[in-house]
């Protein structure tokens, strides 16, 4: 190319510099290509992972909670379909209008409406918000039929915990409820499933104790999401593992019966299998409705529960501590025999017992005359036990009480057990800083004073008497997730056969001999005879003035002042199989209030589980028959 002379300088410079620019461009493009190579080849694995993290989101799927069933497989707690209506706000042009139309089918109050609108404003537009839960089938059908007129409304079926027996089992099963901040804080490890909306965990009872087993393993669904979190499609799904079934030792028929029998009282009743410790029935009345706890109790209702003098939120069978009263006399009696006192030995009861300047009264004003151990139990003579207690001393009594399960907890599956109290001089010194008085030994002889026991402990005590002195412990779970819960091999308490035989005969006298304190509450059917012991635990101190002017009858006192009525028993007398305790708070007297209830329940138990006397049965009170069931 020829360039005219005048221009050649400029052209040469231009060409040189253009070449430089071209070179710069070339370098720039090499840099770009190199960067592409770095990102797309060298670092591609890292970025591919990041892209997957962006794209794939894991959604937890709540596992189906395991059922709780009774010993025969009857469902006590399960999951019920919960018909719901959800609202997806992006699918309706006008949320308010949809809600108004929806409320023509299912009433939405102002409070709920506000809650819905708040939920909608807080969640992305594609997220379903619950509008109404627990719809009846009719309502649900209506919502389905009218769906075209309700843009944005999506009918949905969820799962919710259901307790078909409601309050009858409330104190055993407990309940599930929404996860609280505290639950989250105390949960071990990271449990993301707890954060699922609507997830429920066990808060009380078996639901709490076996929460892990009942809960199961959450599944997961891998979904593809876009940058706004909207689910595009499901990539894979792991349904998780449903929770395990928990089989209780309860017999729901008997539980029901016992509940009906105690309804209206502030009371508890515990029925045990004396060989295995299986809880056949465990009632604490009154109770609450666990279904309502699940769905959220109303504030006013909950306040009423809290403030009721009958303490419906308390499991009285476990946590109610009462002076055992005369039901404690068997323990004193056995301690006496062990101390070398002949059961046939008689003590004269003039109606009162003097210790120094103080008089201790027998419940029978005129006295029982000369009574041996058998009579003393049968008539529940107080003076005999005052005297015996003083003779053998508090340590011997406390030792026997502990061997029969008082003053301790068993690690029962239902949480909330109380240990009660078996007082000793050492305890008094340590806790109260005071010296033990002999008068305290005397009243301990009739189960009063510092002594405290729970109905469960009284049932265990009775069972240990009835099974021949084996330290069974109560249990209420038979199987979890298909594998049987092993029964602990009970240790022999080491009590003499004579002692056992004596107190059991006395208990037989209570129920089956004319003049026994619970003779009116006997079971007449042959082979079903129960042997028991009444107890009337004083709630207040009776003053000297009062005693002189005549002790007020229980019926004349206000409810809170009345005595607790207790009864413990085992049956059948000839081949013991079941033991039970009944405590009716402020029920008046053991024989009048508790014994008839116990009798009816025990009768029901035996009717349903006839115990055939077998040739191989050991003599009562001695040894232990082969475990059944």
């Amino acid at each position, binding site marked *: 190319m020829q360039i005219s002379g005048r*221009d050649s300088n400029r052209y040469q410079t231009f060409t040189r*510099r253009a070449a430089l620019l071209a070179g710069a461009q070339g370098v720039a493009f090499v840099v770009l290509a190199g960067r592409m190579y770095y990102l797309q080849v060298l670092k591609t694995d890292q970025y591919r992972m990041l892209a997957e993290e962006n794209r794939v989101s894991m959604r937890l799927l709540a596992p189906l909670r395991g059922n709780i069933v009774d010993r025969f497989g009857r469902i006590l707690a399960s999951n019920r379909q919960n018909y719901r209506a959800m609202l997806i706000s992006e699918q309706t042009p006008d949320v308010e209008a949809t809600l108004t139309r929806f409320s023509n089918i299912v009433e939405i109050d102002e409070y709920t409406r506000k809650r819905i609108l708040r939920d909608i404003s807080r969640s992305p537009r594609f997220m379903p918000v619950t509008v109404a839960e627990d719809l009846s089938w009719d309502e649900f059908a209506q919502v389905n039929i009218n769906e075209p007129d309700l843009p944005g409304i999506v009918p949905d079926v969820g799962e919710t915990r259901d307790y078909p027996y409601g309050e009858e089992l409330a104190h055993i099963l407990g309940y599930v409820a929404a996860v609280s901040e505290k639950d989250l804080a105390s949960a071990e490890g990271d449990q993301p499933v707890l954060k699922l909306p609507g997830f429920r965990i066990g808060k009380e009872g078996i639901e709490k104790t076996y929460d892990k087993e009942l809960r199961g393993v959450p599944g997961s669904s891998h979904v593809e999401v876009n940058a706004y979190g909207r689910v595009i499609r499901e990539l894979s799904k792991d349904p998780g593992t449903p929770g395990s079934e928990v089989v209780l030792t309860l017999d729901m028929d008997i539980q029901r019966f016992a509940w009906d029998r105690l309804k209206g009282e502030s009371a508890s009743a515990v029925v045990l299998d004396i060989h295995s410790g299986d809880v056949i029935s465990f009632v604490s009345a009154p109770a609450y409705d666990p279904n309502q706890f699940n769905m959220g109790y109303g504030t006013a209702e909950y306040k009423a529960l809290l403030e009721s003098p009958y303490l419906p939120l308390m499991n009285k069978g476990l946590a109610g501590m009462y002076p055992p009263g005369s039901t404690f006399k068997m323990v004193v009696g056995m301690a006496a025999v062990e101390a070398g006192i002949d059961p046939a030995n008689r003590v004269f009861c003039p109606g009162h017992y003097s210790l120094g300047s103080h008089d201790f009264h027998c419940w029978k004003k005129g006295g029982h005359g000369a009574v041996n151990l058998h009579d003393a139990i049968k008539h529940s003579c107080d003076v005999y036990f005052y005297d015996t207690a003083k003779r053998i001393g508090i340590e011997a009594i406390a030792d026997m009480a502990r061997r029969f399960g008082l003053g301790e907890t068993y690690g029962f599956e239902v949480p909330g057990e109380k240990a009660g109290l078996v007082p000793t001089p050492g305890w008094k010194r340590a806790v109260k800083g005071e010296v033990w008085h002999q008068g305290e030994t005397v009243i301990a002889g009739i189960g009063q004073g510092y002594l405290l026991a729970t109905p469960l402990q009284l049932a265990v005590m009775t069972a240990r008497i009835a099974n021949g002195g084996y330290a069974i412990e109560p249990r209420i779970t038979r199987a979890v997730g298909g594998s049987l819960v092993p029964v602990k091999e009970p240790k022999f308490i080491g009590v003499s056969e004579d002692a056992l035989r004596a107190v059991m005969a006395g208990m037989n006298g209570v129920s089956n001999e004319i003049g026994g304190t619970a003779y009116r509450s006997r079971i007449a059917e042959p082979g079903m005879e129960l042997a028991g012991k009444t107890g009337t635990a004083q709630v207040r101190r009776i003053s000297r003035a009062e005693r002189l002017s005549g002790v007020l009858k229980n019926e004349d006192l206000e409810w809170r002042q009345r005595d607790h009525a207790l009864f413990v028993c085992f049956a059948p007398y000839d081949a013991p199989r079941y033991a039970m305790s009944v405590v009716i708070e402020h029920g008046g007297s053991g024989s009048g209030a508790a014994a008839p209830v116990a009798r009816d329940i025990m009768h029901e138990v035996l009717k349903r589980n006839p115990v055939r006397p077998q040739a191989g049965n050991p003599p009562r009170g001695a040894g232990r028959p082969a475990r059944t069931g």
Partner: protein
Amino acid sequence: MLDLRRFTGHEMRLGEKLAEFNWGFLLLLTLIASMGFAMLYSVAEGSFSPWALRQAARFAAGVAIMISVAIIDLRLWMRLAYPLYGFALVLLIAVEIIGFVGMGAQRWLNLGFVSVQPSEIMKVTLILALARYFHGLTLEEVSRLRNLVIPLALVGAPVGLVVVQPDLGTAILLTATAAVLFFSAGLRWRYFILAGAAVLAAIPVVWSRLHDYQRNRVLTFLDPERDPLGAGYHILQSKIALGSGGIFGKGFMEGTQSQLNFLPEKHTDFIYTMLGEELGLVGGLVLLTLYFVVLMFSLNVALQCRNQFGRLLAIGVSMTFFFYVFINASMVMGLLPVVGVPMPLVSYGGTSMLSLMFAFGLLMSVHIHRNLEISRGPSAFW
């Protein structure tokens, strides 16, 4: 071999001009634009609307503009250089006044039937004006200080207006293009060294005057992890998209980052990222290669031209195009801060596409009229 002197001294007829038009080059541009159409089709989840079809229509209009501009005599463009520059400057001032009245940053001028971005027009007219000016100077005259007053004013006025808009990206682009023209015109090296030193010295001053969002962009560029959900999000997601594309990409319309909206602005500034994700390193390099061919062709046009105006015009257009490609690609790869510079011919956008095709029209006019010898003196003004 074509006789290069064939057209010297006589006026070309339309037929001759169309014959000299490099249709292969237009085909090259069409190929590049088509990659853009494909990506715009993919962005819309397999739909020609709303972007691909409109972009194709704009490209068609752009082709018409390019051909029209190309066949107009280069001497006419030389004559129009200053008036066009003046017109663009007036538009820039107008947009500034409207922006001031409207209390906010303003880059667009609404002419009723169409919205134009005066800064885009300025990019082309500044090249015209500077090429026109330096055409009139000998090599010795170029480096005389008094001769630099006018071209510096030509650059300073629009850059100043754009900076206050504020549109830092365009300001840098205008300055860089101008520097290339000064350089190609033969300005001595020492001026560039001095200017470079001045720029370095000015950085702290400029930094203190930057808007917060501009500072954020620079800071985020230097350390994207600084704010992965906010300002750093764009760069990070863009790198993830590119990197996860690998050598062969995830497949057309299969880019998860793009299709699931993790990638921002994917139909405009980040379209190259999307291409890299879906078509991989291979797709990305194909596009870069096409761009490089365009650049080499443009450079050749400049070198083949027998008049200084055409040379400077061609290299100006070429380098502007280069800056676009380089800045955009560097930005999406995390080599430069996020500045709003589109990928030429590929990103969705009307004004930039049309002004670019206008510029290519000028380039083609230089090519067609490469044998014109235009005198340096005032006679060139006819």
